[in-house]
């Protein structure tokens, strides 16, 4: 029996062919320069048995969906007609040879096995392959291999446990493609046509709209105005310091700070008048710094932008390359928990040859291994990103090596013990006010040994104070400070915002960020000094007293951060210079404010519409709704917004005049 196997890209095709054939296959050229057909025999087990296999590949999507011929002109019929215009799905011109190869090979095969990546996009590409194969053989049987990395045993296992393509996932992607096409082009043509007459810098621009691009731009504009409009305010605090036996304890005020001088002075005066402070609590307790969670795509991108000075896009491309070479698992995943059945110890063992982290891996193998923490996300398709085999630096490019290092160190950290320490908390009552001092001694570094991106250090040793002890503090000061503005968004901030608000998928977020730069809606600039990771940092015991206590909001920052739950173990990137941040261009500001000021229920610059759409995609996947229903609802919704936008076009134009043309 003859079987045709088709992968999503040539590297996977070759890797799978190598494993299934045991290394002996014949290679045939095709009419596409990128694609080779590999011929070999393989026993798929029941019911297929020993088969003659041809393994080939596509290069991503085979088809594109476009508007029919009568809708190519930007002016007529008017852009609004695109919401209802007929669309056609055809094979890309430059993919025709690939499609033909599949049809030709299908002619001789009884079974087609899809080896595309196991995610939404992969499912849809699988569907495109099926369509192409049916041109050659209408009756071909279709199966799908489920795999998340190209390690030998995993691939062999997948080949012997074939499943089916999921039509629901295919339909979800089809719905998104159609909606993006209609909405994207309708608004792009409308905005471009409408603003062109203003002349000047917008005369020759194509002003594209995308339902992910605009909310992404919206975040950048929103933060930009938060920074610009920020008004500093003075605040007051009380700091108490006490020296004993040559050691010093710095106490911070439980109230942290007060935005009124008189009130602070009154409370301060009452402290001083009481003369003596009294120790009300001394607590020594074991403490730990949690090891990081297993790695997801978004976290990888955030870490790469923060620690490795790459863009999210670069990081994803590099990880993809590592996956294609078989070094790491599939890098597009939302899962932050390992399946209990996975033999993680074996994967750890593979890292023992490395000079840098080999000894740590060795220690884990010899009894130090701990099961990773479990996050709350599971995409049910892929495990967290982890190394599959060992790659020595000599086989990787310098950038690949840095991403690989991060993935391996993160994985080894996940399989290590938390760092352990002893924390001392001293509480003081001085007048009616409460003050606290905190000290920590790190006892066991554990995961920190290998995860060099996290920092946890001993604090200065506290003097020995007993409960009930009274003393006159060495120093008690009324201090004054001033709130500081939030920072412009870093790429990591932007990714986190997109993630939290359902803008794009983990795999496409970086593309949207790139797109709004290409369109010159935003630009990057270097921010000096400031630590890049303030949003995610855990409580830092060494923070200055006035900045402690109320996370996130503590520094009068309006960042939507710091309260979004614990994303423990975020690498500390503190103190490095030249963090890249995003600021909008004049055009970017004009577009977002233009739509915001139209005062619809949901501005296109806000994430709500897109989020609803993503929710509907998920509902299609879950079988709770259908592609047709979603398309009908969403097209109607966006058409409504479109009509309103046309009515209020003057608002957008005015915003352009105000920002793009203003001196």
């Amino acid at each position, binding site marked *: 029996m003859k079987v045709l196997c088709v992968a999503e890209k040539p590297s996977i095709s070759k890797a799978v062919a190598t494993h299934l054939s045991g290394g002996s296959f014949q290679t045939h050229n095709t009419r596409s320069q990128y694609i080779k057909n590999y011929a070999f025999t393989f026993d798929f087990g029941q019911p297929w048995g020993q088969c003659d296999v041809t393994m080939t590949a596509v290069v991503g999507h085979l088809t594109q969906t476009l508007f029919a011929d009568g809708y190519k002109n930007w002016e007529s019929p008017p852009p609004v007609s695109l919401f209802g215009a007929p669309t056609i799905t055809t094979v890309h011109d430059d993919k025709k040879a690939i499609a033909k190869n599949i049809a030709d090979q299908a002619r001789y095969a009884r079974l087609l096995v899809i080896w595309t990546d196991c995610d939404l996009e992969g499912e849809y590409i699988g569907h495109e392959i099926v369509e192409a194969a049916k041109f050659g053989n209408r009756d071909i049987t279709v199966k799908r291999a489920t795999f998340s990395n190209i390690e030998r045993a995993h691939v062999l296992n997948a080949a012997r446990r074939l499943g089916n393509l999921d039509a629901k996932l295919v339909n979800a992607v089809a719905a998104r493609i159609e909606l993006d096409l209609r909405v994207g082009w309708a608004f792009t043509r409308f905005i471009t046509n409408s603003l062109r007459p203003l002349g000047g810098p917008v005369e020759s621009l194509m002003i594209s709209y995308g339902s992910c691009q605009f909310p992404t731009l919206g975040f950048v504009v929103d933060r930009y105005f*938060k920074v610009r409009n*920020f*008004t*500093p*305010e*003075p*605040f007051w605090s009380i700091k108490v310091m006490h020296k004993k036996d040559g050691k010093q304890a710095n106490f911070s005020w*439980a*109230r*942290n*700070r*007060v*935005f*009124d001088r*008189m*009130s602070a*002075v*009154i*409370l301060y*005066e*009452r402290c001083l008048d009481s003369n003596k402070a009294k120790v009300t609590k001394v607590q020594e307790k074991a403490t730990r710094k949690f090891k990081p969670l297993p790695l997801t795509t978004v976290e990888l991108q955030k870490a790469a932008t923060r620690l490795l000075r790459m863009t999210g896009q670069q990081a994803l491309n590099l990880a993809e390359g590592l996956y294609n070479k078989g070094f790491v698992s599939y890098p597009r995943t939302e899962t932050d928990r390992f399946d209990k059945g996975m033999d993680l110890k074996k994967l750890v063992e593979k890292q023992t040859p490395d000079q840098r982290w080999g000894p740590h891996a060795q220690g884990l193998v010899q009894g130090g291994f701990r099961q990773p923490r479990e996050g709350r996300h599971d995409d049910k398709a892929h495990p967290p990103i982890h190394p599959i085999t060992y790659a020595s630096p000599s086989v990787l490019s310098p950038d690949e090596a840095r991403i690989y290092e991060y993935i391996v160190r993160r994985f080894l950290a996940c399989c290590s013990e938390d760092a352990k320490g002893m924390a001392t908390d001293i509480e003081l009552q001085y007048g*009616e006010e409460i003050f606290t001092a905190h000290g920590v001694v790190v006892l066991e570094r554990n995961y920190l040994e290998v995860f060099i991106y996290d920092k946890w250090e001993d604090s200065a040793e506290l003097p020995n104070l007993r409960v009930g002890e009274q003393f006159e503090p060495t120093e008690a000061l009324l201090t004054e400070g001033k*709130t500081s503005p939030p920072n412009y968004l870093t790429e990591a901030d932007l990714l*986190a*915002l997109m*993630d*939290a*608000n359902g803008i794009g998928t983990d795999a496409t977020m970086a593309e949207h960020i790139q797109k709004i730069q290409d369109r010159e809606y935003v630009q990057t600039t270097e921010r000096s000094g400031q630590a890049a990771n303030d949003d995610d940092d855990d409580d830092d015991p060494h923070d200055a007293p006035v900045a402690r*206590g*109320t996370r996130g*909001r503590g520094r*009068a920052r*309006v960042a*939507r*951060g710091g*309260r*979004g*739950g614990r994303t423990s173990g975020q690498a500390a990137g503190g103190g490095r210079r030249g963090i890249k941040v995003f600021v909008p261009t004049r055009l970017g500001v004009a577009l977002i404010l233009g739509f915001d000021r139209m005062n619809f*229920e*949901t501005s296109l610059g*806000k*994430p*709500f519409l897109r989020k609803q759409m993503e929710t509907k995609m998920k509902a299609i996947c879950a079988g709770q709704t259908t592609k047709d229903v979603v398309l009908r609802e969403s097209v109607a919704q966006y058409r409504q917004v479109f009509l309103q936008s046309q009515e209020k076009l003057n608002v957008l134009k005015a915003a352009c005049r105000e920002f793009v043309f203003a001196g």
Partner: protein
Amino acid sequence: MDVPSQIKSALQASSFPPPSQNLLSSLSPSIPLPSLLATAKSRILSSDLTSSPLINPSLPTLPAGIDSPAAKEVVLGRDTHVQVVDIENLSVSRWEQVEELEAIERGERTRGREVIQVTGEENENVGTQSQPATQAQPTQAGKNAIHRLTLQDRAGNKVYAIELRRIDKIGIGKTMMGEKILLKRGTVVARGTVLLTADKCVFLGGKIDAWQRTWVEGRLARLKAEVGQDRPTQ
């Protein structure tokens, strides 16, 4: 005991200001006592202390010069009833409060990094007392928060009061304008500011609707004006 006397002593037992003759005589004796008492309480709580005909004019006022910053510490010699005319959260910068109010006005709220759209209907179901969107509950104050109230006595004298210890009943959105508080004998006033502690004050509740409305509607503008004052000249 006759009905007016019973009402009078019941009010006293609940730390209420003593009723005026006017109030007592307006209560119809044919209604059961518990209902009468509830009526009397609610009328007192929603009236303006400074002009209410429902309260006995003998009600004590704050000592003269109580708001003087020159006096380091004064202790109230007798129980004094006051009403709230303003509240501020001194633990959060005014600008942060401005931004939060503006987001609520736009129909947005944030949950961590997530921006949530708040529509009118949703809010009625979720909100505690079917408030319009502009009154949606702001973030709850933390356990070490410090609020400053502006209190007013029977004679219209105003004085600041701050939380010496956090009192959960006090908060933006919780404390209502016109709410009545009894400051007990022994309450400390430092540098012209009353120091509030749970053992020295009794929260009687109540609100004056018109004051509350004006306060809510004017809050954003007030905060903005206050921030403006602090703005350093550039």
